[in-house]
């Protein structure tokens, strides 16, 4: 598109600018103006100056909100203003806002054995589909789930989450760490691995505790992360 300096003064205080494009209309909602100003101007334009525009066939409307991102409520108010005009179809609200939607950390899935000398570090939960061998380390800011034997060192909640857990099918860790609590493998004696059932370690009153995996949900639901 050609540079249009001169046609449109920069930083114009017009709250709403309406432009025709090939397949519809663009409403530019000035991000320098208050939401009230925009609503008022929108009203004026819809019912006054731009009425001619609004009488034709169906028109797709894109609303550009600049660097501002409207809340659901604000969007609804704008939709309401436009809905009185049957031929306008709101296609989308476009915002150049770079404020990222807060991202849930993605779990990291490792396939295979984590071997001696290898370190896995991840922001979020870690799932190991295999064993964690002696001399290997897995650090996660979230939970650690081992679909195999945990023989090495696992550190869950390593950046301060004391609600993190470490779960494994076979528990034989060199060391377990959750948040800042360190513990050696629970004394299980020479238990036959064939008869163990999947377990998880968690912090109970700042002490490492181990329980059957089937209790994980009840502990989570009671203590933290809500019941949803």
């Amino acid at each position, binding site marked *: 598109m050609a540079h249009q300096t001169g046609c449109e003064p920069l930083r114009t205080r017009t709250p709403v600018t309406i432009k025709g494009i090939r397949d519809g209309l663009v409403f530019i909602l000035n991000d320098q103006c208050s939401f009230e100003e925009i609503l008022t101007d929108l009203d004026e334009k819809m019912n006054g100056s731009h009425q001619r525009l609004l009488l034709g066939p169906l028109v797709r409307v894109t609303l550009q909100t600049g660097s501002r991102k409207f809340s659901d409520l604000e969007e609804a108010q704008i939709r309401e203003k436009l809905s009185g005009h049957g031929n306008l179809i709101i296609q989308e609200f476009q915002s150049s806002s770079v404020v990222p939607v807060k991202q849930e950390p993605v779990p990291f899935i490792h396939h295979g054995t984590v071997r001696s000398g290898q370190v896995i570090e991840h922001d979020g939960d870690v799932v190991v589909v295999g064993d964690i061998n002696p001399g290997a380390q897995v650090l996660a800011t979230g939970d650690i789930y081992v679909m195999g*034997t945990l023989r090495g060192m696992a550190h869950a909640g390593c950046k301060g989450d004391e609600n993190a857990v470490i779960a494994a099918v076979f528990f034989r860790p060199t060391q377990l760490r959750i948040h800042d609590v360190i513990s050696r493998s629970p004394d299980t004696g020479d238990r036959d691995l064939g008869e163990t059932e999947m377990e998880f370690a968690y912090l109970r009153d700042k002490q490492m505790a181990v329980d059957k995996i089937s209790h994980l949900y009840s502990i989570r639901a009671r203590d933290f992360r809500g019941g949803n």
Partner: protein
Amino acid sequence: MGEAIVVTSGKGGVGKTTTSANIGIALALSGKKVCLVDTDIGLRNLDVVMGLENRIIYDIVDVVTEQCRLEQALIKDKRFDHLYMLPASQTKDKSALTPESVKEIVEKLKGQFDFVLIDCPAGIEQGFKIAVSGADKAIVVTNPEAAAVRDADRVIGLLEAEKLERPKLVINRVRPHMVREGNMLDIEEIVAILAIDLLGVVPDDEGVISGSNKGEPVVMNPNARAGMAYRNIARRILGDSVPLLVLSENGGFLNKMKRMIGLGK
């Protein structure tokens, strides 16, 4: 085109050189053209174990630094016409070797031999990288001891990163009565931890030491149990399915092992 197999372990003294020499001879016994390559610069001893020390004129460093041609450095075995070895250098500067230069030599050897067996130095530093550089496959040697298994695990991780074919495991110096009494790591436990295929279990056998001292590897001795174990390993490398040596009278153990190497039903 032959295949290059590196024999490695991480931990020192677990039996890499013994394993290289014995598997090499066993493969030669089966009529294969074999070349043993010693990459343990400064601590060479494959030639001693093979009883070929007195024939060395040139070595691998001479080949890399172009003091001689590859063919000139190859030593023919005194027993087999189609068994050769490329010795390491005892004294010369080992920094002359690079992964690229050794890889080039191994590639050339693969053109002339069915098997190129590379005896790796202990450790996981440059010497290891050099030994592994030209290899297609790897044999990891360990002993039934926690520290050796730990190092084997480390090495397997590094081999996986090198994109070699899945390494195969040799557990060396197993003493059946110690395993039975629970004083030595269980074979099954080792295989479970390392999670790679078991190529063979070699018993601890005095015949290995006396054989090495005479320059007559134990595999030449038809009566030694370790010799039998090495011959079986060679047959497995050649694709035969050979059951594991009965190390104990305990049938349960053997059956479990059979399952592990895919021989059981």
